[in-house]
């Protein structure tokens, strides 16, 4: 798109520049990257592991050795928050990836096929929209049983959450493809003898990258919330592995909260800040990339 004429800016480039001018969104992006880096690198730097117990230090307040204090078993809360963040962010990212693959594939094929196939495929999406799909995820996670390894459990969450979160993406992608498929470049691709998979995935899908990026960014906090929901109910990651949802659940009892409110304030504030920043980044991207939504 951009190689023909250097002076002419591609729409993608214009959108990027528009995004960079949005100071609030850039600040939020910085915040998200800071937390992500801290979650990945922090536990190595700090020393104690997330499962290391010091029973003489139960419910210790913040100190020089343990910045966030220690929990009911004397485990370092900062390390547990960071490792929990690692898991939450990983589930958010991989779950989003799964949802993007399904949603873009499904939406693009429906939009390009058109006619009855399109009608049927989108009707199916409408039906799924009306279902309480999170209930099914709860059901599947609850049924996994106790003898499943932690890695398998996290993998199951990636797939289950991604597999229920693709509907909006499919709808948006389909709309974009329908608008694009009558353009001349599709006609010329067809004239050179390209088959439909090549037209859809090499010619049409690259043209909607911006929209896909925007809506997958908005998907990350949604999937992180659902991961927290599962872990809060004790269906996500299992002890001693922490996740933001399970850290909050462990500290949310009335008795614990009254005596040690910091146990819930630290992970809660961290989780909220990351979600807040991610939502602002997604909003900024939408303003920059999706002019129709711009007000």
């Amino acid at each position, binding site marked *: 798109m951009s190689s023909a004429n250097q002076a002419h800016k591609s729409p993608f480039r214009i959108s990027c520049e528009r995004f960079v001018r949005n100071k609030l969104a850039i600040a939020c992006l910085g915040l998200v990257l800071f937390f992500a880096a801290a979650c990945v690198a922090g536990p190595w730097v700090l020393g104690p592991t997330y499962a290391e117990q010091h029973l003489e230090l139960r419910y210790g307040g913040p100190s020089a050795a343990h910045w966030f204090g220690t929990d009911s078993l004397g485990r370092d809360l900062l390390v547990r928050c960071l490792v929990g963040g690692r898991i939450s962010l990983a589930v958010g990212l991989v779950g989003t990836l799964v949802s993007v693959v399904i949603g873009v594939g499904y939406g693009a094929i429906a939009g390009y096929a058109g006619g009855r196939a399109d009608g049927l495929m989108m009707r199916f999406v409408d039906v799924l929209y009306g279902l309480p799909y999170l209930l099914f995820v709860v059901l599947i996670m609850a049924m996994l049983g106790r003898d499943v390894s932690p890695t398998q459990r996290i993998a199951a969450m990636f797939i289950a959450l991604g597999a229920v979160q693709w509907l909006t993406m499919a709808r948006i992608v389909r709309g974009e493809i329908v608008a694009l498929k009558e353009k001349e470049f599709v006609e010329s691709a067809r004239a050179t003898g390209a088959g439909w998979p090549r037209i859809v995935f090499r010619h049409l899908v690259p043209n909607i990258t911006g929209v896909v990026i925007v809506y997958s960014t908005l998907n990350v906090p949604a999937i992180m919330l659902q991961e927290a929901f599962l872990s809060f109910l004790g269906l996500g990651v299992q002890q001693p592995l922490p996740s933001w949802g399970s850290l909050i659940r462990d500290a949310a009892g009335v008795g614990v909260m009254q005596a040690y409110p910091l146990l819930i304030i630290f992970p*809660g504030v961290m989780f909220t800040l990351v979600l807040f920043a991610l939502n602002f980044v997604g909003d900024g991207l939408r303003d920059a990339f999706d002019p129709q939504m711009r007000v």
Partner: protein
Amino acid sequence: MWYFITRRIAGGLAALFCIVTLTFFLLRLMPGGPFDAERRLDPAIRQNIERKWKLDQPLVVQYLGYLRDLGRLDMGDSMTREGQSVRELLLGSLPKSLVIGAVALASALAIGLAAGIAAAVRQNRPSDYALMSASMLGFSVPNMVLAPLLVLVFGLWLRWLPTSGWGGWRHVVLPAAALGAAFAGRIARIMRASMLEVVREDFVRTARAKGLGETTVILRHAARKAIAPIISYLGPATAGILTGSVIIEHIFAVPGMGYYFVSAPGDRDYTLVLGTVLIYSSLLIVFNICVDIVQALLNPRIRLE
């Protein structure tokens, strides 16, 4: 219009049927059963129990039997809670969940709409930014964080409201606030965007040109049209309220349906799981049909599709 309504209801029943079928077979595919306790049962006793619950029959026969009972509005007895029928258990707990959910949704609508309209009228002024930041905060704070914070501040420190349990309106305030905040924030943002689009339209200019007061123009003319996206958001919002109430009921120890929903799958209580899934899905489907009907009443083009 009647054709439209019957078609929606038929679609809802079909969806419900699929949900029941899917859940039924999903439950049986999973390892473990309701009577697999830690200690092994005597084979003869086990056989008797299985005969009583018809678990010894072929799966298809069990499935058809369950459907037949459902037709008579009988959801069977709970498999792990002795002597209690699923209907009793759920009818006892459902009203509490409904009250919290309805109060949360209604107040989210009232607050969200008011904030959205106010922000749109003051576009790009400090009060607009303040309202929009507040609404972003509202839907970024997960309910599982907001609920404990509310308990901490209003229940434990200020001692204004009870922290847990059930009985009287005072027990509804904190759960409903924790549950509704996210939706109030989302509704405010959708309403603001929609209002900003609508106030540029010709019919609003006409209303102003007729000499109507600004309040009338905004509330009677613009807001009426701008509310359409909010109505379509109500479907997903209800789904969110239903799942969110599971968490809220846990934190506030409300003896609602969420408790059974969380504990029944772990116990492999087949009938109780099916019952909770059935009730949650029916609630959602009925509400979605109502939303569709309201939308069709407001916009005749939808009816003709």
